[in-house]
C-alpha cells in the first residue's frame, strides 16, 4: 500500500511538473513570452499550467496509475521517449525562441575589384535602418551603401529577432561574405548585380546578458523535457490497460472529484486551442487573449463554486486577495502615474489649486477674472496671445465674449506707466503659468462686460479697459480705430 502511495505521488509530481514545463514551453513558443509584461508572463503560464494540469489529471492520470507494478512498460516508455527526443532534435531544424541578445552583422566585400552595395537592412521591428545615418563615412549611390573591395561594415545591436539584409553588386563578378553572429553566408554575383535578400535568423545566440542566457537555456530545457515527458505519457497510453486490475481499486478521491469537472476542463482546453490558433494564424492581440483566459477562469470558478458550495466563502476570499494583490501591483507599477499625483500643497490659494489641475491656459486665465471677462470684448496683440498660450475658441466660449480681436498696438508698458497704474488702487492679481509674473486687473477702473486690452511689462500682464485707456491721460497708447 505504501509503495502504491509512493507511486501515486511520483505520478502526481511528474504530471504536475510536466504540465508546468509544457505551459512554459507553449508560452515561449506561441504566446510571445519575451514580449509579455512580467505580470502577464505569470498569468499566462499559470493559466496554461492549470488547464493542462487539470486535463492531464482528469484524462491521463487514471490511466498512468493503473501502470503500477508494470515496470517494464514504464521502462520501455522511457527508452522510446529518449529515442524520440533524440530523433526529434536531429531531424527537426530545432532553434530556440529568439532572445534579447547582442547580434553582430558583418558584410565583407571579398571581391578583388568589384564594389558591393547594401540596399537595405530591415530590423526585427520591421523598420529599415537608416544606412546613411549609421554608416556616414561610406559612399552612397541611389541610397545604397557602397563597400569597396576588401572592406567591410559591421553593425551591432541588442535586439530580439532577426534582420533581413539586401546586398547587391555594382559590377560583376563579385563576392561577399555576410557574417551574422557565428554564421556566415557567401554570396556571389556572376551575370548581374541584383540584390540578394538574406533573412538572418533571430534565434542565433549572439552575445546575450546572463539573464537572457539563462532564459535561452530554459527554453531548450523545457522543450526537451516537454518532448520527453509527453512521449513517455503517450507511449504508456498505447499499452493495453491491465485486465486483472479492477477499475474501482485504482479510482482515488482526486479522480472522483475531477470527474465532475470534465465539462469545464474540456471547455478550457478548447479555449487554449482557440488561443493557440488565434496567435499563430491571426494576431497577437494581448487583450483578446486575456479575455479568452478570463472566460476560462470564470468557467472554472463557476464550476468550483457549484460543485463545492461549501467552499464559496473561501473561493471569494481567494478572489478578493488576488484582486488586492493586483491592485498592489498597479501601485508598484502603475499604468499611469496617477495616484501619486495626490501631492501636498503648502499653498492653500485657489490660484495654486487652479494652476495644477491640468486646465488649459484659457480656462486658467478665465478663472482668475471671470466676473469681468464675462460677455466682455477682448483686444490682444499676437505676441501676448502667444506668450500666454491662449486658444481663441475656448477662451471665447468660456467667457461668452462679445468680440475677440487681434490688434497691432503698443502693448508694452513703460516702468513709469506701471508705477502709475499700480498706485491707482488694489489690483486683483492672478499668477501666470509662465514664469513668475502675474496678471493684473483693477476693479476700480473695470466694469464687467467692458472692452479689455492686454498689456505687458516683463512677465506681468495687465487687463485694462478701453474706457480708462482713452480717458486716463496717461496711457499714451496708439490703438487702431
Amino acid at each position, binding site marked *: 500500500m505504501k509503495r502504491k502511495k509512493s507511486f501515486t505521488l511520483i505520478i502526481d509530481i511528474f504530471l504536475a511538473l510536466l504540465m508546468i514545463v509544457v505551459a512554459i514551453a507553449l508560452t515561449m513558443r506561441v504566446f510571445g513570452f519575451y514580449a509579455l509584461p512580467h505580470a502577464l508572463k505569470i498569468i499566462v503560464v499559470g493559466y496554461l499550467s492549470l488547464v493542462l494540469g487539470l486535463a492531464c489529471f482528469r484524462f491521463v492520470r487514471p490511466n498512468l496509475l493503473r501502470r503500477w507494478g508494470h515496470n517494464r512498460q514504464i521502462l520501455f516508455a522511457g527508452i522510446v521517449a529518449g529515442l524520440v527526443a533524440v530523433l526529434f532534435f536531429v531531424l527537426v531544424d530545432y532553434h530556440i525562441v529568439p532572445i534579447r541578445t547582442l547580434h553582430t552583422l558583418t558584410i565583407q566585400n571579398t571581391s578583388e575589384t568589384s564594389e558591393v552595395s547594401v540596399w537595405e537592412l530591415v530590423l526585427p521591428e520591421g523598420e529599415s535602418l537608416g544606412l546613411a545615418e549609421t554608416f556616414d563615412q561610406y559612399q552612397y549611390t541611389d541610397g545604397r551603401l557602397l563597400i569597396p573591395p576588401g572592406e567591410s561594415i559591421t553593425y551591432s545591436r541588442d535586439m530580439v529577432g532577426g534582420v533581413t539584409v539586401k546586398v547587391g553588386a555594382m559590377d560583376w563578378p563579385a563576392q561577399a561574405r555576410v557574417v551574422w553572429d557565428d554564421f556566415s553566408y557567401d554570396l556571389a554575383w556572376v551575370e548581374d548585380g541584383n540584390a540578394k535578400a538574406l533573412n538572418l535568423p533571430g534565434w542565433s545566440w549572439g552575445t546575450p546578458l546572463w539573464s537572457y542566457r539563462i532564459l535561452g537555456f530554459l527554453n531548450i530545457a523545457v522543450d526537451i523535457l516537454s518532448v520527453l515527458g509527453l512521449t513517455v505519457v503517450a507511449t504508456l497510453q498505447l499499452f493495453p490497460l491491465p485486465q486483472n486490475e479492477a477499475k474501482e481499486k485504482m479510482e482515488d478521491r482526486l479522480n472522483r472529484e475531477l470527474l465532475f469537472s470534465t465539462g469545464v476542463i474540456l471547455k478550457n482546453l478548447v479555449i487554449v486551442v482557440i488561443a493557440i490558433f488565434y496567435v499563430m494564424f491571426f494576431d497577437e492581440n494581448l487583450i483578446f487573449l486575456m479575455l479568452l483566459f478570463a472566460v476560462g477562469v470564470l468557467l472554472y470558478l463557476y464550476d468550483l463554486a457549484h460543485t463545492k458550495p461549501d467552499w464559496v466563502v473561501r473561493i471569494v476570499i481567494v478572489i478578493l486577495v488576488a484582486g488586492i494583490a493586483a*491592485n498592489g501591483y498597479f501601485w508598484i507599477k502603475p499604468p499611469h502615474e496617477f495616484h501619486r499625483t495626490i501631492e501636498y500643497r503648502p499653498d492653500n490659494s485657489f490660484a495654486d489649486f487652479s494652476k495644477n489641475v491640468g486646465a488649459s491656459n484659457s480656462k486658467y486665465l478665465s478663472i482668475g477674472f471671470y466676473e469681468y471677462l464675462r460677455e466682455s470684448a477682448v483686444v490682444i496683440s499676437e505676441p501676448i496671445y502667444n506668450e500666454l498660450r491662449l486658444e481663441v475658441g475656448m477662451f471665447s466660449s468660456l467667457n461668452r465674449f462679445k468680440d475677440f480681436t487681434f490688434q497691432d498696438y503698443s502693448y508694452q508698458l513703460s516702468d513709469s506707466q506701471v508705477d502709475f497704474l499700480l498706485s491707482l488702487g488694489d489690483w486683483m492679481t492672478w499668477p501666470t503659468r509662465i514664469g513668475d509674473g502675474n496678471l493684473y486687473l483693477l476693479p476700480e477702473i473695470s466694469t464687467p462686460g467692458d472692452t479689455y486690452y492686454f498689456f505687458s511689462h516683463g512677465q506681468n500682464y495687465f487687463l485694462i479697459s478701453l474706457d480708462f485707456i482713452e480717458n486716463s491721460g496717461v496711457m499714451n497708447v496708439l490703438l487702431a480705430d
Partner: protein
Amino acid sequence: MFFLLIELYLLGLVITKYFAGKLPDFFLAVSSILIGYLIYFLNGFIFVLVGIPLRSIWVVLLVSIELIGVLLHQVLTKRFITSVTRSLWLHYLGVAAVYFGVLLFFYFNNFAFGTTDSVFLVVMARNLIESGLSKWYFSSPWAMGLFIPFIQTIGLLFGLEYTWFIQPVFMAIFIAMFVFLTERSVRHFIPSKTLRWLLVGLVTVLYLSSDLVFIMTTYIHTNFDSGLFFFLAIASLYFGIKEDQPAWFFFVPAYLIGFGALRTENVIAALILILIYIGSQKVAKPIQRRMFMPYLIFQFGFYLRIFFLSPDTFSDQLSGTQILMVLAGIAAVMALLYLSEVKILKSFVLPRLWWLVPAGLLVVVAGLGVSNFPHLFNNVMVNIKAFFITGNWGAVWWVVLALVATLSFPHPFSQKQELTGLIVSFFIMIVLLGMLRHPYHQNWYDSANRMLTHIAPVVLFYLVTQTAAVNEAVR
C-alpha cells in the same frame, strides 16, 4: 468656521438622537456628521431661494437657532436624557474625535486633488455667495449639482479661498459606514466573527486600493460623494425592511436629498430606486409615502427652480425640455405612490417592476441606438474598457466579474430581486445617458467612468451579502 462645523455636528447629533435605542449607535453617530452637512446645504439653498445673501453671520445664526430649537424640543418632551445610553454618548464622542481629527489633519495638510471640474465647482460656490442663483460663469445647476458648491462655501464664507479639507471626511465616513453596514448585513449568515470581518475587510481594501477610488479621498468632485449618499440611502431602506424597523426610513429621504443635490442626473437613479421599491410592496403604503415624498418634493422644487434659471455657461448640459421631462418623471412617481393601491397596478405591474424598469430602460436605449448605432456602440465599448482597463479601477471590476460568475446561485437574501433590478438598471442608465450627450471617452475622468463610483459600493455590498447567503444555505 470650526465653530460652525461643531454646531453642524451637534445639530446632526441632536437630530439623530431621536432614534436612540432604535438604530445602531455607530450609525447614528456617523450619520450626525452627514445630517449636519445636509442641513447646511438645505439652509443655504433656502437662503438663495428667498434671496438672502449667503453670509457667515446668517448661516451661523440659523444653525444656532435650529440647534437650540431641536434641543428645546427634546428637553420639553423629556427625550434629551432618557433616550440616550452611555454607549450612544461614547459613540458620539468617539466619532466626533475622529471626525475633527480627520478634519484638522487635512486642514493643516492640504492634499487636495482636482480637475477643471473641481475649479468650476469652487467658482459655483463663489457665484452662490456673490449673487445667489442668478449669475453663473463656467458651470451652473444645469451642469452640476449644488451640494458640493454649498460645501465649498463653508471655507469661502470664513476667508479661505476654497475648501480642501471636507472631502477626506466623506471618504472616512464611507469607510466607516460601508464596513459597518456590510458586516451588519452578513452577520446572521456567517456566525464566525473572524470570517465575517475578513470578508468585509478584504472587499473594503479591494475597493479602496483601486487608483480611482484612492484619488477620491481628496478629489473635489461629486461622484464619490454621490456613491456615499446613494449607498446610505439604499442601506437604510434595506435594513428598514429587513429588520422591520421604520426608524431607518428617516434616513432614506435625507440621504436621497443629498444624492439628488449632488449631480443633475442622480435624480434618475433615485427614481429608479423608488420605483423598484414601490414595486416590491415591502413597505406599508403610508410609511412609503412619508419616506419618499420629502425627497420627491425637494427634487421637484429643486428642478422647478433651476428650470427658471438662464445660466448660459460653458458646461451646461441640461435643456429646458430635459428639465421638464425630469419634472414629469418626478410627478409620475409621486402619483404612483398614491395610485399603487389601484388593483391592476398592485397585482400586475408593481410585482414586476424590478425587471420592468431595467427592461424599459433597455427598450429606450435600443430605440435611441437604432437611430445612432455608432454612438451607442462606441459608448458601450468605451464603458467596457473603462471597467477593466482604462478607468484606473485596477482589479475591482475583474473581481466583481469573478464574483458574479462564482455566486450565480439562486439562494435568496432580503431584497435580492430589488437590488438586482436596481444594479442592472443603473448600468443601462449609464448607456442611456451616453446617448443624450457627446460620446464618452476613454480617460479615467470621463463622466461614465466616474459614475461607476455611484453603484460600486452597492454592487460590492450585494456580492458580499450573496456570498454570506450561500454560506448559510450550505451550512
